[in-house]
């Protein structure tokens, strides 16, 4: 990088004019996405996008996981098969305690992370179950990491089914 040292101090005006040409430089590609072309969703299924960048998500972040019938159905419909299912909601609650509660609090009202109990959503897409899956699976920003790296997709559906109960109260 030594060549850039010679740009010091770079003239302001030039930086401004250069910057317009560089706007497309942000978000051109990421290391994680190099594998995406191999993991494109199968024909006919929904396309899942990153909540912040709108780029297609790598749907194969944990290659060893089993894509359960519920997950495959979700990929097609965007409807959570575990919604309202007591057994899966209970499993989702356990996962929520481990992975989500530190920021969103036990009652879902949020502190570091946003409130999950109302119908106000931080990002427009999160007013749908598909959008909420995209945020949990692929991450939003900062501490709202890609939990698809930590949990199987089936488990994420269980967490979402539990989170849904906050708004039913």
């Amino acid at each position: 990088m030594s060549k850039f040292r010679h740009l010091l101090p770079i003239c302001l005006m030039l930086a401004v004019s250069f910057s317009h040409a560089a706007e497309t430089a942000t978000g051109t590609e990421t290391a994680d996405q190099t594998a995406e072309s191999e993991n494109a969703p199968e024909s006919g299924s929904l396309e899942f996008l990153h909540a912040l960048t709108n780029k297609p998500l790598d749907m194969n972040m944990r290659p060893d996981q089993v894509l359960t019938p519920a997950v495959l159905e979700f990929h097609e419909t965007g409807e959570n098969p575990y919604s309202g299912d007591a057994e899966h909601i209970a499993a989702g609650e356990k996962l929520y305690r481990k992975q989500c509660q530190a920021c969103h609090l036990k009652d879902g009202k949020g502190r570091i992370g946003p409130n999950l109990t109302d119908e106000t959503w931080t990002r427009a897409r999160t007013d749908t179950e598909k959008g909420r899956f995209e945020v949990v699976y692929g991450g939003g920003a900062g501490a709202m990491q890609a939990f698809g790296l930590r949990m199987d997709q089936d488990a994420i559906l269980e967490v979402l089914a539990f989170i849904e109960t906050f708004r039913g109260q």
Partner: protein
Amino acid sequence: MKRLPVAIACAALLTTSAAFAKEVPTSIDDVAQPGGTLTGNPEIAFVQVATGFLDPVNVANAGDGTGRIFVVERAGRIQIVGKDGAVNDEPFLDLTSINPLGSDVQTGFVEQGLYSVAFHPDFAENGYFYVHYASLPFNGDGMIVRFTVDPESPDVVDADRANGTAKVIMRIEQPWYNHNGGQIEFGPDGMLYIGSGDGGWEGDPYEAGQDLSTLLAKILRIDVDTEDDTVPYKIPADNPFANASSERLMSLFGITEEEFSKIKTRSRPEIWSYGVRNPYEFSFDQKTGDLFIADVGQNHWEEVIFEKAGNGGMNYGWPRMEASYCHPMTGDPAESDCAVVGTLPVAQYPHSAPYPGAPEDASGGCSIQGFGVLNYGGMEGVYMVGDWCSGRVFGIGHDGESWQLQDMMQTTMQFTAGGYDEDGMVMVVNANNFYLADQGPDTNPPGALWRIMPAADVPEGAVVADSVQ
């Protein structure tokens, strides 16, 4: 090219005006908040240098001309990244394996671990480097230890070499597992500066920030160049409290109040400045020697402290103040009446709730992480910081009239720290760790090393971090 002379004149003018006007705010109205604009409205990009680091939490260079970048992993390892971006197979230092009874590093809480590495200004000659870490044998106390590189093995300090050369410089007792500070860095004056947190819990239960008898909640400054190597360090004669606690005969009369006020019989001479909460990251402006501190806030505000080169003895207010406001916050600070204690920060940004009961704004942060001071890309003395929670990046600079906090970009990343490469460019690491119940420093998804570059200078084909404005 005809605009070049104009640009040079413009830059020169701004450089000159900025140089004499960097004063710390004396009024809350002058503390920069989000929404500001840096001179020239610069645009930056995060260019990936290397990836695959496990909970990277600091980055440094050795200043020895090798171009190596040292990435600190929280578990207790330091990895070397070569000039070409390749990561060495063997770590430079591995504190998880120097003690036959197990790791020497306490990582049980996400804020604990190996915090930072600093290389002696004469590292190329003496091989000295220093680390700060939470010690497992000492129940999480902060250990600052010097090791010496074997010139025959410049890239690997193995367990025998580490044990054979270890010199404990300082142990900072830590009552609780959070707010341990972390950064250690040699200043332009050759002294070792240490960021020491308030010891943890919340609200500073020890009142450490205003207590000069403890090393907690301070910026410390010591001289590691002792003539006798059995002495851990020396107190620099110009430390603000260097002689404040020295024994002396008592005189009651004929002494001014100012002279009395300098007698502080319980003060620690290592203290450089005080009233900080958790200075996990701080950076010297390599051009001016000025110091920026990213002081992690509590429930409502994150702050940036600016200290002119050599200007010790400052009180930054904690726990009487949280950023520019009185602590504890009980409501809208605009409606409260309280006196400022100490020196105000130059910039601050809020959490999702800027005060109890405030409307929530999900774009708020939770933990400021300082990267370094940019003196390139059209920027002059701009301190770049990012937030561990929100993934936002802010630039803090002085435009000749006032301090500005510019929202540079929203990224997807969780930032943990920054540093410099040998060319003075600012390096950044991001991790994927947080206050989660079941993750350890070696099991969290890996993070990466980035270089902050002017957006216009990003090389073709480079991997650039995702961001939106």
